[in-house]
């Protein structure tokens, strides 16, 4: 349905922005929910997870788009997985080298980027069918959309659960933390809250467009 489904179409703004809003991987397509729930207990963790996933998305989009005419259809999924796994392993080592604290906070979820369907979905649905430039821009948009979603969830959870945002105290020392928001149920509460907000905004917009068209 997107305007860029054909290979020869020129790059448009939608190539980039569809991942941010219209096809946001978490809030609209409901992909990659496992990391979105599991490592979104603080805004910093969420941001790190988002950046790591964006890097994997960019790298795999680039390589898959480059190799798209060389990989036979029958082994494409296996090839995509190997390529994605390579970048995930790289990210894993790099984060481990950059900060031990961050590495411990993200835990097994860095390795689990490999099964994030938002990434394999991009490889299958976009990168394997488009030119390198398109694939990179689209992958970057999707990565940003994923990061945005994680930070939105992580931000709310951190504000309520710790009284801080990106580690900066918002309410002073007397703040009563809402422990439940740091625990797994809090992830579900906040994610569903954002899903409701996004759905409401989308419905409003569609209603307006319909009214406009008529």
């Amino acid at each position: 349905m997107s305007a860029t489904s054909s290979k020869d179409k020129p790059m448009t703004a939608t190539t980039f922005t569809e991942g941010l809003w219209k096809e946001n991987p978490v809030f609209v397509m409901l992909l990659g929910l496992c990391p979105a729930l599991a490592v979104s207990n603080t805004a910093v963790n969420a941001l790190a997870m988002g950046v790591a996933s964006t890097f994997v998305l960019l790298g795999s989009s680039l390589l898959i788009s480059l190799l798209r005419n060389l990989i036979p259809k029958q082994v494409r999924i296996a090839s995509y997985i190997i390529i994605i796994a390579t970048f995930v392993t790289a990210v894993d080592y790099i984060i481990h080298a950059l900060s031990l604290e961050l590495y411990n906070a993200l835990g097994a979820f860095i390795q689990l980027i490999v099964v994030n369907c938002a990434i394999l979905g991009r490889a299958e649905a976009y990168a394997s069918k488009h030119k390198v430039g398109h694939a990179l821009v689209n992958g970057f948009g999707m990565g940003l959309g994923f990061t945005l979603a994680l930070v939105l969830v992580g931000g709310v959870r951190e504000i309520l659960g710790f009284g801080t945002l990106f580690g900066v105290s918002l309410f002073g020392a007397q703040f009563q933390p809402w422990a439940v928001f740091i625990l797994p149920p809090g992830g579900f509460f906040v994610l569903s809250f954002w899903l409701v907000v996004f759905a409401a905004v989308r419905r409003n917009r569609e209603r307006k467009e319909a009214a406009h068209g008529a």
Partner: protein
Amino acid sequence: MSASSDKPVQLHTSPHLHQPLTVEKIMRHVVYAMLPMCAWSVYQFGLSVLMLLIVCTAVCIGTEHLICRWSGKPSTVNDWSAAITGILLALILPPGFPIWMAVVSAVFGVAVGKMFWGGLGFNVMNPALVGRAFAQAAFTVPMTTWVPSMAPGRFTQFIPSTWTPPLMVPRPIAEWLDQIAVDGFTGATPLALMKYNQESTETLALLTGTITGSAGETSALLILLGGLYLIVRKMMDWRITVSILGSAFILSGIFYWVDPTIYPSPFFTLFTGGLMLGAVFMATDMVGSPETAKGAWVYGILIGVLTVIIRLFGGLNEGVMYAILLGNAASPLISKMTQPRKYGALKKREAKA
């Protein structure tokens, strides 16, 4: 609901006006049945509990009304069910619970526990318990901070933690405790004393409610009176209450018989914590409990057994809330499995043969 009489034909003298038992009417009578309990808990804990009752009830009604309005439906607050949720919630929170946290729990209970499902009749779980479960998970320490009952000056001053500024930790109550000078007050409920210190509390104190606890769980006697009133008026399924209390009594009796030095006596189990309140007013919620008579027994026994198991072997000292929530969750399945055989239909095995 077994509102209709057993006789196939009813003979009455005129006037032949029959008033059907409506949801609204049942709910109103549940509120009546809870009033003595409320009065007693206000007498015990004073202004703070009165405030909790008022605020919780108002917030529950307000939340339901607002959500109805936002979703463009007629308001359903006139069926009294939101008021019941509010009263119940206030009765199962600690008396000195900060008002702002009570507001949050009430909004969560009604919004997530009831209205998101589609309102009364569609919710799976008891909204008051959902609110309390949320409070337990979010504000663990305030939820386990208890104050002594019958404190002097309770009708003229609030417990300091009641008026905590929003989003802040509860005001410390140590100074206030010193001031009212209650000797040997540890802030532990009878259940906590049992679990961590192996100390039992006298049954008479448990019956009348001169103990520490949340407002409504302290007097088993008044809860039973309220329950009896509803049973006599046939507005409550007595099977659920009886099976919860009975199974909890029997199971804890068995443990007590095996080793009375570790396990509490069955009477202690019956009269402590929220078991009585839960069995009479919360598990019997018509929406969350099975609709068949056989199902009611299964449901009640499940809750009773779970309560005892959580209390004796779990990490928490009180398990009624989770037991009822689990029972609520299981009740559609119980209803389905205990449907009576259709008249004239053969049993499965016979039908096959």
